[in-house]
């Protein structure tokens, strides 16, 4: 590295910055915008589900003006548009909002600080990773406005549907979806290589493996999942792109008939192949969504219970076990695809196995609360709510993991309820906790606690009002992809009873979903208001936390630490250590309780920093 004496210009500092903190903030803001867009798509879909076939108020005119009468005639959501929004809601939420927020933003910003590093190991790669992600996001957004509209085959893009969904246009939404995905995957790869190398190579002196904050562990495992699980989807994306553009038949079986005419392709492909390659990524992806969230929750819980995490090592080993097993469970999404029954049993077994480390993590986090002197501030409330919410999400997953019970529940609203409990009140709550928790480090000001609590309370209520009824709908058998919310199905001759409740619930869920959006207004206002008017922090460590990120100036300058930190102790040394003092930061060499170690200047202190 060469001298950087001249201060970098505006572009270098804020736009094409290689500073991990700027990249992290860029990721965070972009991902929050996508979170908003993803929510917006769903809010519009919920109108169609609650009031099928009626023009959407206000936004209907907008849709008509922008997308034309083919997709939104008279402001009514067309089936194609509904499918597009459904597919893109999933894609945007998973690949453009949650993962970039959890890994791109928090991983980038917090990991180097927590391990005492001046930056990421490959800063330029880091910048590229953000911009590749940005281009991928732009491609996804552009796809809404091309003829035929965005991809409409679900976020899973199952073949052959994905290839034949839009036979009119050569370059259709699916094509752009695939190209966008290649960008997003490349971005993830660059990011994960960077995070792993940083954690392994740039840990501060004395920061041994078992002294890493759990958040860093979670990010490490997550990065490994991204590194090894994403490439197969990239391969699958290339294959599907060939099917769509060059007429190959990777995923198109022989004898495919579309619209009454045999499709003019060679055939011989395997639709199951796509599903294997897709879920090889997409199941581990679930753990990419949840592990960083668990990491954030662990940090916030330890800090606000003022005691060490219960069973730190169990947490670490469980995270590793989750990371490993997550590669071997993917086909539990495919029980009903005609896959062999013997292999279903294998995947059922691994699926049950992976619930063990998940339960261990949840249990240790709950036991951390025992006997703590809990501070109920906003980040803590979100972290606390994460526990039962993720618990509901996890436990409702078990019936889906059994190949027998999955027959009834597969592809119903039960599935939607299940994974949204994991991701929405689960991961998103943890991400909110992280935003409220690290906001003062990033900006030097605290977010308003009262409005934070309002945001929390409303979000908790409406999240549950949205997703809890979906379990009932799913158990009634309502299919997850029905354009009219199941109205035609319920009126059919095969349905003796049921679904009547499900249909009524649609209306309630939709209203709760819109109110959930309104409940975010206090957050958005608080977020920007606090930038300028929030209470200034009095010290660099406003939460009285132990980990290294709080040992930097606020906000941390380029290069982070004023002097190279040396770590002398574990990450969560909370507890009464002296009058008015209940924590010992990691970099403090002497504990206030113990007598000061015999310390001849120039020699090593007694508490030896360990290297491995």
């Amino acid at each position, binding site marked *: 590295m060469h001298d950087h004496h001249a201060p970098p210009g505006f572009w270098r500092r804020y736009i094409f910055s290689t500073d991990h903190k700027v990249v992290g903030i860029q990721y965070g803001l972009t991902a929050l915008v996508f979170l908003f867009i993803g929510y917006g798509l769903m809010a519009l879909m919920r109108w169609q589900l609650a009031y099928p076939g009626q023009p959407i108020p206000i936004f209907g005119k907008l849709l008509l003006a922008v997308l034309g009468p083919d997709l939104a005639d008279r402001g009514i959501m067309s089936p194609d548009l509904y499918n597009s929004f459904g597919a893109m809601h999933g894609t945007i939420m998973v690949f453009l909002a949650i993962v970039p927020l959890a890994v791109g933003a928090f991983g980038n910003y917090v990991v180097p600080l927590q391990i005492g590093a001046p930056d990421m*190991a490959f800063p330029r790669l880091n910048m590229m990773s953000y911009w590749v992600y940005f281009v991928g996001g732009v491609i996804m957004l552009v796809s809404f406005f091309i003829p035929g509209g965005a991809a409409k085959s679900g976020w899973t893009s199952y073949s052959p549907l994905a290839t034949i969904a839009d036979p009119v246009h050569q370059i259709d939404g699916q094509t752009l979806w695939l190209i966008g995905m290649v960008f997003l995957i490349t971005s993830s790869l660059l990011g994960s290589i960077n995070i792993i190398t940083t954690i392994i*190579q740039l840990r501060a002196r004395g920061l041994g493996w078992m002294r890493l904050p759990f958040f860093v562990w979670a990010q490490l495992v997550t990065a490994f999942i991204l590194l090894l699980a994403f490439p197969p989807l990239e391969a699958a994306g290339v294959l599907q792109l060939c099917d769509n553009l060059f007429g190959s038949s990777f995923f198109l079986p022989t004898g495919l008939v579309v619209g009454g005419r045999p499709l003019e392709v060679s055939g011989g492909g*395997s639709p199951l192949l796509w599903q294997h390659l897709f879920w090889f990524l997409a199941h581990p992806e679930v753990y990419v969504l949840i592990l960083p969230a668990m990491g954030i929750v662990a940090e916030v819980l330890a800090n606000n219970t003022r005691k060490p995490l219960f069973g730190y090592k169990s947490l670490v080993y469980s995270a590793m076990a989750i990371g490993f097993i997550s590669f071997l469970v993917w086909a539990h999404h495919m029980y009903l695809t005609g896959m062999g029954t013997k292999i279903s049993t294998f995947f059922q077994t691994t699926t049950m196995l992976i619930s063990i480390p998940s339960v261990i993590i949840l249990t240790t986090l709950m036991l951390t609360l025992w006997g703590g002197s809990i501070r109920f501030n906003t980040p803590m409330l979100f972290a606390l709510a994460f526990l039962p919410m993720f618990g509901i999400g996890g436990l409702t997953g078990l019936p889906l993991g059994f190949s027998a019970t999955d027959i009834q529940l597969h592809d119903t609203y039960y599935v939607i309820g299940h994974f949204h409990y994991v991701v929405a009140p689960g991961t998103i709550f943890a991400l909110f906790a992280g935003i409220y928790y690290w906001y003062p480090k990033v900006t030097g000001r605290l977010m308003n606690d009262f409005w934070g609590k309002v945001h929390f309370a409303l979000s908790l209520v409406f999240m549950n009002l949205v997703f809890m009824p979906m379990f009932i709908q799913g158990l009634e058998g309502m299919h997850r992809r029905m354009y009219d919310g199941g109205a035609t199905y319920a009126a059919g001759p095969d349905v003796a009873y049921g679904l009547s409740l499900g249909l009524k619930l649609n209306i309630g869920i939709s209203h709760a979903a819109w109110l959930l959006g309104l409940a975010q207004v206090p957050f958005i206002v608080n977020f920007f208001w606090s930038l300028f008017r929030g209470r200034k922090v009095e010290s660099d460590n406003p939460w009285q936390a132990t980990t290294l990120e709080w040992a930097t100036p606020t906000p941390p300058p380029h290069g982070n630490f004023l002097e190279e930190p040396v770590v002398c102790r574990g990450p969560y040394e909370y507890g009464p250590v002296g009058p008015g003092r209940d924590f010992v930061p990691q970099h403090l060499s002497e504990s206030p309780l113990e007598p000061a170690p015999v310390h001849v200047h120039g020699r090593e202190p007694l508490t030896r920093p360990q290297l491995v």
Partner: protein
Amino acid sequence: MHAHAASMTIPHTVTPRPDTGLYNARLGIWLFLASEVMLFGALFSSYILLRVGASEWPQRQLSIPLGTLNTLVLILSSISVVMAWLALKHKEFGRFKLWQGATVLLALLFLTVKAFEYHDKFTHYYVQTRDGRSWTGHLEGKPFNLTLARLQAGATPPTEIVFHPDAAGHGRTGGKTDHAEALRLPVSELVKLEAFGPWRNTFYAIYFVLTGLHALHVIGGILVLGYFWGPGSRMWFREPERFTNRIEVAGLYWHFVELVWIFLFPTLYLL
């Protein structure tokens, strides 16, 4: 260590970290290669699944002599790339230039051969007529990637094509080039005319994707190795150790490209 914040030096860009014994880029490239293993792993997995699922799998569709030639070219280049690195280790910059240049040239040779093979496939045709007869062979004038639609789309669509069918049992390019007697087929009689592209069957589909992706990696290698041979080599005079590391890392990547080919060659050409 002296990683003071003010100077903002990233530790271990050149010197290895004591406990891992690695400098950053060395770990980084292996992580990248691990992800590449999974990328090609998925494609090999697809190959296996498609082959097992196929009612009959076309074999010996490709020229073994050309494939062998390319294998040898890559083997030579993976030796020369390691010699380039060793030359730097011995501080012999001139020899480095020689070996590195040789590697880039060999990589270009590989691509040239590959381009000929691709071209052969896009000038090799399958035709089918209304009465159900079908042939494989070449069109008069060796047109590139013609289809029935493109044949009829011209300003003056031809009324017939002159077709040289392959001798019996020889569907592959580069084998015997002797053709049976030329056929004159009226265009109105044709129901199918297509070159041996990825649309032909799943074998050609996976062949083009696997070799195409591999060729992209070769092109990437040429760019990287060529950069370090040319403008990038100036770093040698400023930071020789760091430059040597870069060459090692680029070499590891190049070996991986060779490694993939070692499996592509038998699975696509031989078996």
